[in-house]
Each structure stands twice: as structure tokens, then as C-alpha cells.
């Protein structure tokens, strides 16, 4: 992946930060997360115009042409704001999957609509057991005349219920291949799954002989893995950014909340928790950025970097969000306080692309153990 320069990436990050500050505050989040779509189409268009939605799509296909490093930086802001929407599912995972296939015609046909935000694409990869390995794919593809039909179930499909376009990993006689399907076609049902994180949208898709088009290019599972790595790095950035933000909020509160005649942050109990969390937060940022650099440079050992970020960022964010509630005390036990929104997102992110224990095992394998 090419990547824009560091200065440009930083400038983009700053623009994004301003837009999110203006348009994606907590009140907006709370409003939007209770709507069926779970995101604000107007803001989505603005983010697309800014270049966020097509950030990793090549300029030739209507995108920004930035690489993982710029993506990760941007996702730190996205995470800090808990921005809801199909960015990770469509703009990163699905776009990344199309790009990873490396078929120019497919890319030219599908990527521009994804990049400009006019089409929401969803990648249907794993089955109901939620294992992000080749064995986890639970859809089969059968040749049918000139085309193919799909049968089976895909779950954990990000914004599947909002998708205009499905990219489906399915089992064929020659291994996993990637298919394009129309979510409105006969032979498939998209069912929204209610999420504990109300700002998240996940669907289960049941295929019963749905027509599909096989996409050419690189072998399917290799492309899926490349797209998953990219999505994992993006989510790591999101987690790192969200972790840092919720820690900042908590430290700010500890400076102003007075109990026993002094700010609670002057007590070692609170101060030492904050210090420990800072180590977690900064380590998450380091891990996410390092994984992005490794991916951008296609470095040897990128796998280790991605899986390290996979568990370190997930657990850092979860730990920070959970401890932040304790540090706040009663106020954060209320629905109206934002702390639980971070905890809900953190709990979702921990599971979304493979649990920490799985990433730890893969990390060790990548280290040769």
C-alpha cells in the first residue's frame, strides 16, 4: 500500500478532528445510535467528501490513496469520538477486500462507489461461531449456469443491514473465493442482530441459493486475510484513540471533583490508577501505530505487529473504559454519563475481529513459537 506522507496524514487528522468535534459529539451519538441505520447519512457524506470513507482506496478509483499509517491516525480520532457508522465495515474491510483481490476491473467497478460513500459495502466472512480463520467460513458456493449460488450463514457482518453490496467469502471446490451478491436478491435474508453497544450494527445473513458473482484476482482467503489485517489495524487505532480519550475525560474529572475537601485526583488511589492507565493508553497507541507502519511497509513480521495490536489495544481500551467508571464513582453509573458508551464500545471491539486469546496465540505463532 502506498500511503501519503506524514505531514499530509497529520493535516488530514486535524481536519477530521475539527469535523468530528463539530458534528459528532455525544448528543449526536446518542441520537443516531437509537435510529435503525445507526449513523447519520449527512455526516457520512461529509466524511466521504473529506476523504475519510475512501481513505485507503487508490486515487485512481476515487479514493484518497492513503495507506495504513494515515488510516490508523484517522481512526484514533474516530475512536475518540466513538463515531458510529459503516466506516470500518465498508470503507476499510470491504474496500480493503476488493483492493486485496487485485483485479483491476473489479476495483474500477466497485471501489468508486464505496470511496465516495454512495454505496455501503459489507464483507460477509465468518459464520455464526465467529472464528476469523479459513475454517470459520460457513457459506458454500456452487456453480450454477454461468454464475454461482451461495448457501449457508455469515454472521458478524458489519453494517450488513445497511449494505447495498455484499462481498461474501465462500467455500468452493478450489478453496475460499470471494463473491459479490446483492443484498436485495432472492435467496438471502439479512437479519440485524441487536447489539449491547447500541452504536454498533451487525447482521447475520442466511443464504439459501442466492445468486452471486465470483470475483477474480488473488486467491480468496489470502485477500480476506489482507483485508482483515487492515481492518484490525484500523480498529486498533480506534481503540487506542478511544482509550486515550476516556482516560483524558477521567483525569479531567479527577482534577475537578472534590471530596474530603480536595480533588479526588490528589488521592493516591485515583492517581495511581490514572498512571497505570496512561501506560496502557500509550502502549496501545504505540502498538496501533507500529502495526500500521509494519503493514504499510509490508515489513517482515507484520503479522506479529498486527496481532500484538490485536490484543494489546483491545485490552487496553477495555481496561481503561472499565476502570474509568470506577474512578468516576456514582456519576458514571448513570445512563446519561458517557463512560458506559466507551465501555460498551470497548467490549464490542474486544470481540469484533477475534478475541484477545486468539490474537495472543497468533502473535506467538508469528514469533515462531
Amino acid at each position, binding site marked *: 500500500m502506498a500511503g501519503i506522507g506524514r505531514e499530509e496524514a497529520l493535516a488530514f487528522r486535524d481536519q477530521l478532528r475539527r469535523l468530528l468535534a463539530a458534528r459528532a459529539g455525544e448528543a449526536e451519538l446518542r441520537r443516531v445510535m437509537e435510529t435503525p441505520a445507526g449513523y447519520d447519512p449527512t455526516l457520512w457524506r461529509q466524511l466521504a467528501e473529506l476523504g475519510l470513507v475512501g481513505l485507503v482506496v487508490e486515487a485512481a478509483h476515487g479514493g484518497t490513496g492513503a495507506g495504513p499509517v494515515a488510516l490508523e491516525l484517522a481512526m484514533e480520532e474516530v475512536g475518540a469520538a466513538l463515531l458510529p457508522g459503516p466506516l470500518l465495515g465498508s470503507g476499510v474491510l470491504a474496500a480493503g477486500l476488493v483492493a486485496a483481490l487485485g483485479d483491476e476491473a473489479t476495483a474500477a467497478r466497485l471501489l468508486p462507489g464505496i470511496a465516495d460513500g454512495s454505496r455501503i459495502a459489507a464483507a460477509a466472512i465468518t459464520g455464526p461461531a465467529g472464528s476469523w480463520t479459513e475454517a470459520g467460513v460457513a457459506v458454500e458456493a456452487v456453480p450454477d449456469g454461468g454464475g454461482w449460488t451461495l448457501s449457508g450463514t455469515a454472521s*458478524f457482518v458489519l453494517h450488513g443491514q445497511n449494505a447495498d453490496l455484499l462481498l461474501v467469502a465462500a467455500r468452493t471446490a478450489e478453496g475460499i473465493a470471494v463473491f459479490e451478491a446483492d443484498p436485495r436478491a432472492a435467496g438471502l435474508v439479512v437479519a440485524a442482530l441487536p447489539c*449491547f453497544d447500541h452504536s454498533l450494527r451487525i447482521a447475520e445473513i442466511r443464504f439459501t441459493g442466492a445468486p452471486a458473482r465470483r470475483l477474480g484476482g488473488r486467491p480468496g482467503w489470502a485477500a480476506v486475510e489482507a483485508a482483515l489485517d487492515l481492518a484490525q489495524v484500523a480498529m486498533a487505532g480506534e481503540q487506542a484513540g478511544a482509550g486515550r480519550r476516556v482516560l483524558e475525560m477521567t483525569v479531567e474529572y479527577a482534577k475537578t471533583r*472534590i471530596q*474530603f475537601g*480536595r480533588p479526588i485526583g490528589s*488521592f493516591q488511589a485515583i492517581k495511581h490508577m490514572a498512571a497505570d492507565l496512561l501506560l496502557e493508553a500509550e502502549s496501545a497507541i504505540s502498538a496501533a501505530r507500529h502495526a500500521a507502519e509494519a503493514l504499510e511497509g509490508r515489513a517482515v513480521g507484520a503479522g506479529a505487529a498486527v496481532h500484538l495490536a490485536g490484543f494489546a489495544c483491545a485490552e487496553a481500551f477495555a481496561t481503561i473504559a472499565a476502570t474509568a467508571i470506577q474512578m468516576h464513582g456514582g*456519576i458514571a453509573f448513570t445512563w446519561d454519563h458517557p463512560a*458506559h458508551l466507551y*465501555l460498551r464500545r470497548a*467490549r464490542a471491539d474486544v470481540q469484533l475481529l477475534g478475541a484477545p486469546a486468539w490474537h495472543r496465540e497468533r502473535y506467538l505463532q508469528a514469533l515462531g513459537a
Partner: protein
Amino acid sequence: MTDALRDEVRAWLAAHWTGPAADEAAARAWLAKVVEARWAVPRWPVEWGGRALPDAEARIIEAEFAALGAPGTGQDRTNLYANTLLAFGTQALKERLLLRMLRGEVPMCLLYSEPNAGSDLAGLRCRAERRDGQWVVNGQKVWTSYAAVAEYGMLVARTDWDAPKHRGISFFFCPMRQPGVEVRPLRQITGESRFNEVFLTDALIPEENLLGQPGQGWAVLQTALAYERSVMGEAARGPRSGVAEGTGEPPLIALAREAGRLGDPVLRQDLARVLAYRALNALNTARAKADLAQGTSSPLMSLGKLAMSRILHEEARLRTAILGPESLFEGPEHPRAEDANFLTLNAYFTSIGGGTDQIQRNIIGERVLGLPREPEVDRDLPFRQVRSQ
């Protein structure tokens, strides 16, 4: 003597107990009978419906009631409102309320915490002023259960702003059904509304509803809190769904088995570790009770709440680990995920409510281990001068 007592209570129960009450009216009727027969508060003085019995004999009565599952006795240990009233109330208030309370006719609530007085309850700023033979209250309380149905709230309010923080507080039975009391439900992170905010605007309290002397409310409160603590700790809430709970196995083992994860060696280690937390706490509690029964004070009592906090947080974490991606979901079709998520959030009820884990560690360090207190910057200042938000 004790045999005679046991015979008496057995005979009475045989004559009167007809099994669990079918509705609230029947439950009240039963309580009224228990009160009338002087079984409700056997340790209390005869004057207030008791029998002035020593603890050991009162426990015989409790044991006989418990054997049948009959409620109503032992309120001299467990009814925090009635015990507080008995200890500190005016004659008039006791006459008006005490027996009604034992009969379960007086729904109550607690008006203690304030938005700016949580861990530091003695920093409360709700104000009560004596005016024309009654008390006028202004301020805000929070974390009040049952505020909407209560007849009285046990209220702590500041009556002297020139005294140091602990010495300017008074304790009241505040009538809840009056225009000056506004109750607003408070939505918790779990999505439930089991608590309320209570706004007091020129709320009125008769003079006789003051417990203890003005300015001595902190001592009254300590008594009330001690009764509350002795009841709490066992009150932590379990899963909402009941899924995987009915097998007789420890629920976490049943859940892991049901989820097909019981063979996972990593999870098994975690499972043993977390099960041990609950098992050890049960053993500690049993030891504490045995110590108390022998008249030895036990450091274990103070550890229970801190231990329970860890148990609840760790059990919720493990449930999540067992479920994996299933924990993403909520709603009636995902009861196991509902449980894991609810218990994750509700664990803070124990680690924050009723004194945070951090406050609890202070208490254990100071009162049990005898470690010195921290310098307190506001302890002896006139309250007016204490730094606030």
C-alpha cells in the same frame, strides 16, 4: 427456659402459619399477627412490642420461623428503619410509626447521597433550617430506591454551617408525600431505573421527626449504616435470565459446559480461579459468623464487600470470555449475552455503591489493620470554609 421458648414458638407457628402469603394483603396480615404475638422483635423492650430476650433466645425464634420459611421475626436485627427509630426517635414519632413499621405498613427510603457528596458523605450540602416549629429542607439527594412509593425518607441534612463537617448534620424522618419533594427516576448504565433523584424544595418536616439532637446526625447515621451493612453484601444480584442456572452445578461451570467451552484448558484455569473467589468468600463469611458467635470480633466482616466486588467483576469477565463473540448481543434472543453484559455493568453497583472499593480499602486499612489515617484537610474546618466543586 430455651426449650420452653422453642415449644412456645413452635406451637404458635403450628397454630398460625399457613404457608407463604398469596398477595401483599395476606403478607401484611401475617406480619400483623407476628407483631401482635411479639415475635417480630424479641430482643426489643416489652414497651415496643418486644420480649427483651437475649440474642441466643431470639435466634431460637428465628430458627423456628426459618425452618418453616415464615417471615416477620428478627426485625430487631434486620429492620434498619425501625431499629434506627427505636434508638434515636422521639416518643411521639415512635408511638406513631414503630408498630406500623414492623407490620410493613410504612414504605421507607434513604436520603443520604448527594451529587457532590458520594464517597465523602459528610460533605453533604442539603440544608435544613428550623422555622416556625418545623424544619424546612432544600437540596438534592440521589441514588434513592423506592423514593416514589415511600412514606418517609431517612434524611441527613446540614443544620449548622459553622461547625466542622461531621458536627453540623442532623437526621430526620422526612415525609415524602408533600409538594416540596420531587422524585425523578434515574436511569442507570444497565438501562434500568431502580434509583431516583430527589429534589427537596422547601420541604417541611415536623419537629418530632428529628432523630437525636440537632448536629448529632452523623452518629445516628452511623448506626443506620451499620444495620444496612449487616443486611447488604448478600444482596448482590445474579443473572437476569436464569439460563444455565438450574442444573445444580456452579453457574459458571454450567455456562461453560452449555457453551461447549468446558474442555478449554485456558478457560478451565480461569474458571477455577474465579470459582475460588466465591468459595473463599463463603468460607470467610462462615468464619466471621463463627467468630461473632463466640464473641470474638472478626476482621473478616469488613472484607466481605471488597471481596464481593471482585467476585462480581471477575465472574462477569469470565462469562464474557466463555461466550466470546456471542457477548456482543443483547435482547431476549440472547439471554446468556444479556446476563454477561448486565452483570458486567451491575458489578459497579457493588464496587461503587455503599462506599467504593477504594473507600473500603481505607476502612480496612485504618479500622482493621490500625494503619494511620491520611491528613484530612477539611476535618476540623467550619463547613462554610470547606472547598467544594
